[in-house]
């Protein structure tokens, strides 16, 4: 009985996240990022006569550099807290996770700190990406030929 009461008290007092507002912010910020990149791609393709694949490679490259730079020298963490999934889900989140774990563990030395913890957060993305791509590739080969 005591436990149930306590649980109810905890549930009542923990602040409820404003879900609608958060998802709206994530939708608009992520969408704006996509729209800006699409405008950049149109400029690169139409003005500088690039292929579409080259243009998208350059855009991903720019995004990664900007995310690493902002995390290292400015407060990108604040932006991530503000815009949430709008910055975590695009490729900026991947760069941000690598850069922030590198910054956090630099104090333990270059090998045991920086080298050992470099992929602490981004490692899961690489691991499950490779494993799932391999398995889906085998499935496609077996069933579709």
């Amino acid at each position, binding site marked *: 009985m005591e436990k149930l009461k306590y649980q109810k008290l905890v549930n009542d007092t923990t602040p409820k996240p404003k879900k609608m507002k958060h998802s709206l912010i994530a939708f608009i910020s992520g969408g704006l990022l*996509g729209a800006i990149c699409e405008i950049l791609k149109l400029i690169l393709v139409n003005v500088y006569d690039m292929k579409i694949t080259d243009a998208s490679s350059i855009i991903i490259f720019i995004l990664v550099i900007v995310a690493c730079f902002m995390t290292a020298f400015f407060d990108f963490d604040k932006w991530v807290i503000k815009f949430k999934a709008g910055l975590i889900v695009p490729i900026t989140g991947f760069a941000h996770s690598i850069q922030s774990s590198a910054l956090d563990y630099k104090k333990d030395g270059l090998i045991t700190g920086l080298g050992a913890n470099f992929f602490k957060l981004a490692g899961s993305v690489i691991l499950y990406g490779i494993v799932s791509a391999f398995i889906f590739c085998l499935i496609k080969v077996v069933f579709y030929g």
Partner: protein
Amino acid sequence: MTIIYSFLFCGFICLIGQIILDNTKFTPGHVTSSLVVLGAFLGMLGCYDKIINFVGVGASIPITSFGNTLFNSAYSGYLSGGFIGIFNELLCNVSLGICSAIIFSFIFTLLTKVKD
């Protein structure tokens, strides 16, 4: 017109991520990993390439495209070199994202002061 499609698609993926983050106890690591798996699955079904053709760069920015690219390079590796070809070419096309992130974050980390 592709600008509007990019806005809608990229925002939609971010919206899915945010809904998972808010309603469950998953961390951002869970969300990004599962989105990568989703992207590889959509790549297997063949829809993600059509989406990229239709939407534009707005579909190559989210992390789902990482999984799709991994799957595509694995499959093209199988077509060109058989079973060993999968291992040969799996990381070919995503190497841009991974290598640029590694090299630039290493340089920027060396340039900053040690945090307490």
